[in-house]
């Protein structure tokens, strides 16, 4: 009798033990680390890991600056960032905005790659990299498959949708179904100052944000660049 209670007791102990060692997911693990600067732009407090985020805007409007702001937090937290098929994105500028390059890998900007090959490579990289950045043309090759793969692997997909500098229309029917969408409208740069202290400046980025549920929200990023 005593022995059977002992067995029962051990079963209970095992139950308690299994509860104690069961996988625990902290709230911070569910979201992508966001830097203080980027947090000002976001209407939500975090970007959920595995989501698809589209950054749209005309060339020169600040899309790359916003991308760099979004990469500051993940790169500082030691997460892997893979950038595919965006040869003109300057990592030197990204680094000056605070992106830690030690966890960044990218496709060789001196070479040109086929879009579908880049999409398949992005598919493979979601397996090991927590943030994968691709151009909209690449993402649209296999948009829904790429998004669902990223969601499954909890890798955040950042899609850059850059329009020609003199484009007057805004992206409407994107192939990529975004969980979160940013539209960047940077105000004009101004020239001035000296060669040493900076000769060009822009007060802040203007970013319109929309997710699947909410109406577009306009935020002014209180972030001089820089």
């Amino acid at each position, binding site marked *: 009798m005593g022995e059977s209670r002992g067995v029962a007791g051990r079963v209970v102990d095992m139950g308690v033990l299994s509860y104690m060692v069961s996988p625990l997911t902290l709230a911070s693990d569910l979201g992508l680390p966001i830097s203080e600067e980027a947090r000002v732009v976001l209407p939500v407090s975090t970007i959920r890991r595995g989501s698809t985020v589209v950054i749209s805007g005309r060339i020169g409007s600040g899309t790359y600056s916003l991308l760099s702001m979004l990469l500051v937090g993940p790169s500082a937290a030691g997460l892997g960032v893979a950038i595919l098929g965006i040869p003109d994105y300057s990592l030197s500028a990204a680094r000056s905005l605070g992106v830690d*390059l030690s966890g960044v890998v990218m496709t060789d900007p001196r070479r040109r790659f086929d879009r579908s090959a880049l999409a398949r490579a992005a598919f493979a990289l979601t397996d090991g990299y927590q943030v994968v950045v691709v151009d909209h043309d690449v993402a649209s090759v296999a948009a829904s498959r790429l998004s669902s793969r990223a969601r499954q692997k909890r890798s955040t997909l950042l899609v850059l949708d850059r329009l020609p500098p003199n484009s007057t229309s805004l992206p409407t029917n994107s192939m990529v179904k975004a969980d979160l969408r940013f539209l960047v409208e940077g105000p004009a740069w101004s020239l001035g100052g000296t060669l040493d202290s900076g000769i060009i400046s822009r007060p802040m980025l203007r970013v319109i944000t929309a997710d699947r549920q909410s109406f577009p929200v306009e935020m002014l990023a209180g972030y001089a660049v820089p």
Partner: protein
Amino acid sequence: MPRVVHFAIPNWSAISRGWTSDSGLEAAVVADRKVVGLSRSAFEIGIRIGMSTRSARGRSHAIALLERDPIQELRRFFPVQQALTSVSPYFRYVSAGSGYLHWSSVGRYFGSEEKLVRAIREAITGTDVVDGVEISDSDVVCGAADGYFAATLAAGMNLIVPPGATREFMDAMPVSVLGDSEMLSLLPQLGIKSIANLLSMRVSDISTRFGSEGIALYRLALGEEEVPDLLQLPDRKVSIESSFEQPIREVEPVVFSAIAEIRAPVTELLDRGMVVTSAEVTTITSKTSSSRSWTLFSGFDERSLAERVRWQLEGMMNCEVEESGWDGVVGWRVDLIEFVPSHGSQLDLLGIPGVIPEGMTRAMARAEAILGPESLVVPVAVGARSPDQTVDFLPWQRPVGEVSAGRKMPARSRGSGRRRLIGSRKLPVDAQDPPWPGGIADPRPAAVYLDRPAVELLDQAGSLISLSGRGELHGVPFQLNSPKGSFLVRSHLGPWLVEQRWWDDERSQRYGRLLLLLHDGSAYLVVVNSGRWFLEAIYD
């Protein structure tokens, strides 16, 4: 020091593309912003191998610059390797277009080095590379000396250095033959022009002034740091092989499975303190088999060995497709034949950070299998004036020390890369960011165009604006015509003249830079070189 006979086809990048001497094509093959191959017409207008792409463009605006295709170069090197088996089965191949042989392995048969060199030249000459394009005798350089590095230099001059005379031969060489680092461009200005000058310095002085890079170059000049000196054979032969029941037509799955199978023995050797520097790769197709020896002085890991399997298979596939059709691979074998002691890798203070986690490595290997070899790079911040040069890109599986691996110098000799990397691929650590005189101040332009598309900067009358030799702008910028559209200019700053390496005819550059503010509020950086305007960057 062993006698080494080295051969190379310096212009292999161009020859493997089938560029003939009478085609009139003005073109060059480039890699890492340097010319690595060129056509006859490009040669005639003064373009040379090793020249920067910018200097090449300076010689001719019309020149076509084509990106290197390493896979195609390796495929088309296969017939050359086949031809050389008639000379000796003991050739070691370092890369496509070059290889070497230890004189001791064939000395008794050939009797003299002159005969061997002649046999090598005869074997290579006349090899059909592609569509009837054959290698001519003048395409091949071949030479012999004591030690690998001296042999590569002797080959470049088509010279057989008599045994024992290698020291004098090396002493007369300029220091630039040791590589193309910043330190080497500085030495001539300090009066150290030849290797004899360098070796006359005290080691302690070199160490104090130039650190580990100086010591590595000093040892290379001495001939110490070249072919692995201590061969240490394990107690049993290490062979890895795999065979397939059905022929596999695609090369990628074979290479991918090879990585997994080679990993265990290579890791085991590393645990025993050894690293593989030479391996014999045998690839078997449904029709034939091929065996080649490959050498990597910095040491092979599973990925670089599997890459050799790929190179060989690509070559065989190319030949068989042309001859009788490709049926597929039925097996491969890798025999590890030379080993050196591993110097291990230095982990960060807390161990883990800096080492790429296994999951990332696997993901990158898969992505690279899709995109091609050396398609993924890791960025390293470096100092420079031009925004397109402030980040250097290293293939993710190459040692950190090989920032600009040149043809002249074995990778092993470059800095401390080997010691830091073998066994655990380690991400480069960004250099400190010292101020760079003449560089672009923050904020930096976020979109930088490496290919620098041509633009037109016009004044209100529609005339092209020019820059005088003294840096004065002739005309007021009014309109910018670029591939992205035409824009009106609201205001501008500059120009700033940039003059780099004025002491070096080959690499000197002089151009002007202008910052334009356009009417839509965006800001563009443009440069003017020899009267032509190029888009350098956009603030974004």
